[in-house]
């Protein structure tokens, strides 16, 4: 399993372009509150003043919903496998973090019974990292690198299954992998 995890890690483009982020634990709550207040004030400024405005449009809610948006953004599976595609058009930075063949490995990995062994770790790790995403607003390619761990473990479980496939299917899968890496390199280097 360790070897498989290493292979998957080596094949992951996320690590190829990795720089050590300096803003992992940056937090500026004052600034965030200021921004949330400004958004709410702008919104409220346009509508007739009454008590419901405060109830349905207020800065603490805005502050939380902005952070939850980032959590949900990180839960978008497409964010990990594509780049320059729909999300990028609407202002979300999108850099390909994994290959498409790794997506197949991820799906297969979920059906590997050995996943039960890692269930607790995967669950707790994912929840903790999402809490960090919520607090420190991790969005960028570099900041979100800790989120790669659960993916890599499940992909390794998928690879373990794939390696047991009949030879002809293994050749098909290896060819897909080879050509995808080749296309990616031709477009990026």
């Amino acid at each position, binding site marked *: 399993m360790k070897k498989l995890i290493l292979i998957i890690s080596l094949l992951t483009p996320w690590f190829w372009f990795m720089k050590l982020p300096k803003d992992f634990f940056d937090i500026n709550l004052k600034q965030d509150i200021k921004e949330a207040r400004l958004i709410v004030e702008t919104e409220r400024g346009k509508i007739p003043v009454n008590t*419901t405005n405060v109830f*349905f449009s207020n800065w603490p809610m805005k502050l939380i919903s902005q952070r939850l948006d980032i959590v*949900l953004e990180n839960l978008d599976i497409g964010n990990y496998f594509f780049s320059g595609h*729909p999300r990028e058009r609407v202002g979300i930075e999108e850099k390909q973090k994994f290959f498409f063949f790794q997506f197949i490995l991820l799906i297969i990995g979920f059906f590997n019974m050995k996943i039960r062994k890692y269930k607790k770790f995967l669950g707790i790790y994912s929840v903790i990292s999402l809490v960090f995403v919520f607090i420190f607003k991790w969005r960028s390619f570099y900041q979100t690198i800790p989120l790669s761990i659960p993916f890599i473990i499940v992909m390794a479980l998928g690879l373990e299954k794939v390696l047991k496939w009949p030879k002809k299917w293994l050749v098909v899968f290896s060819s897909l992998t080879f050509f995808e890496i080749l296309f990616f390199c031709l477009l990026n280097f």
Partner: protein
Amino acid sequence: MKKNLNKIILLILIILGAFLRLNKLGIGGIGFFRDEAAMGFNTWSILKTGKDEFGQSFPLFFRSFEVFFMPAYEYLSLPIFLLFGPTEFSARALSSISGILLIFISYLIAKEFFKSEKIGLLTAFVICISPWSIFYSRGAFEGNLALLFFSIGFYFWLKFFNSNKNKLFFISLLFFVLSMYSYQAPRFVAPFFIALSILLNKNWTKKIKLWIFGGIFTLMLYLPILIFTFSSAGNHRALGVSIFSSNNPISGYNQDLGNWQKLYIFPKEVFSLYLHYFSPMNLFSKSDYNPQRIVPNFSVFYLWMFPFLVIGLINFFKLKVKNKKLLILWLLISPIPAALTRDPFHTYRSILFYLPLSVLIGFGIYKCIEHHKKYKNIILTSVFLLSLYSVFSFFFNLFKVAPVTLWREWDYGYKEITEYIKEQPSDLRVVIDDPYTESYIHFLFYGVIPIEEYQKEASLIVADKYYKSSEELRPVKVGRFEFRPVDWPSERGDKNTLFIFPSTRLYPSEFIGDPNLSLVKTIYSLGNDPAFYLIKSVK
């Protein structure tokens, strides 16, 4: 007693759903979009003259601007227009009725699928309060009608697979075809769903005769539309918005590098767009990227429904239930038509997708209660309180925020303009500054331009190209009305003319102070921004 209680709860949900969908449906608010006006006017025109705006008798596709609408919405709206006349309420009512009936159908689907009345009620509750269902039931959206027909078709399909009664098979096909007469997306989803659910059935070859009869029955019902497949009316919409169209180049594609890239980029793009429909970010937070299809601060579902969807999904895959694959098929196929178009997350084209998701949310709430029976009351109270706050907040944003922020996207102001014009002398020339020349439909809908007069002009231009061409074919001048871009420096001196300018097209400094011009009216949006300037030349 328990059965009666369930019936009462269902009735309460339907009444609540009707209130949320019909309350203030046709009055004031955000505006009245041109597509709504087009569908409404064409229905009215058919009712009055037997012809649409282009003078086409009882068309099979409704030509509207440069696109074609499927005909069911217009024809089924005829009795509503007969009762209420050409009003915003009439145009939107059929969609609202579809949304209300959907609450009941979703209950039947979930009840039949899970064999549980409780899950049926919870699903009906989710549909009743969901932002997507309320939003699409409060505008003239023919997709909502298509969803209703598709859901009825699915219900009978499910019953047929559970009971093997051939009668149910044909009833189901009838409703699937009706959904294909209502909106573009089911034209792809319904046949694909039917074919796959038959082929995935282990013993499908045993009923080959039935499938053949079903195929012939469907073809006969669908033939009137099918014969237009290769004309603009039949395929223009699909080709026009497809990512494979040369008009919609995809990002990342570099022509200098050659066509080989398409092998890599196209499948990736399609798959990326497809997965975008499963994104929690889109479903629970960001929503549609077209401001005309959103309620500010809300998405397809409420954020608190997300954990229930996850619970529902996990338990659904563990569940052993007959014909489980049918719901999975619906879930997987329904976003495909939208994913093949360029828009990143188009909630309207993917409207069929949200019902199975709602079923899963309802199932998730049920499972959550079942797993934690001790906390049943706490969970139910929390869901109730969250729903209450969410619905109030949704309507606050719909009634208070949207009208002041999104009025432009909803063509606000044309009703007020037409009311002013009706008070003016009938020989006054009216020039509307409109580069897209689409505003004419509002003047038709509100009865300022006589129907016959417009039909006469439009039919001459369209001639025999009604179904064949997707070119811009419409008159820019009908009687005393003109719809076109105004060349202000050269036209500002025209006598006996009322110029209508959107506030974004003319600065006040360009007409204030001119003794030959008089600003007779400014139409203000609900946010107090100027929407239109009505400028009259002084005789």
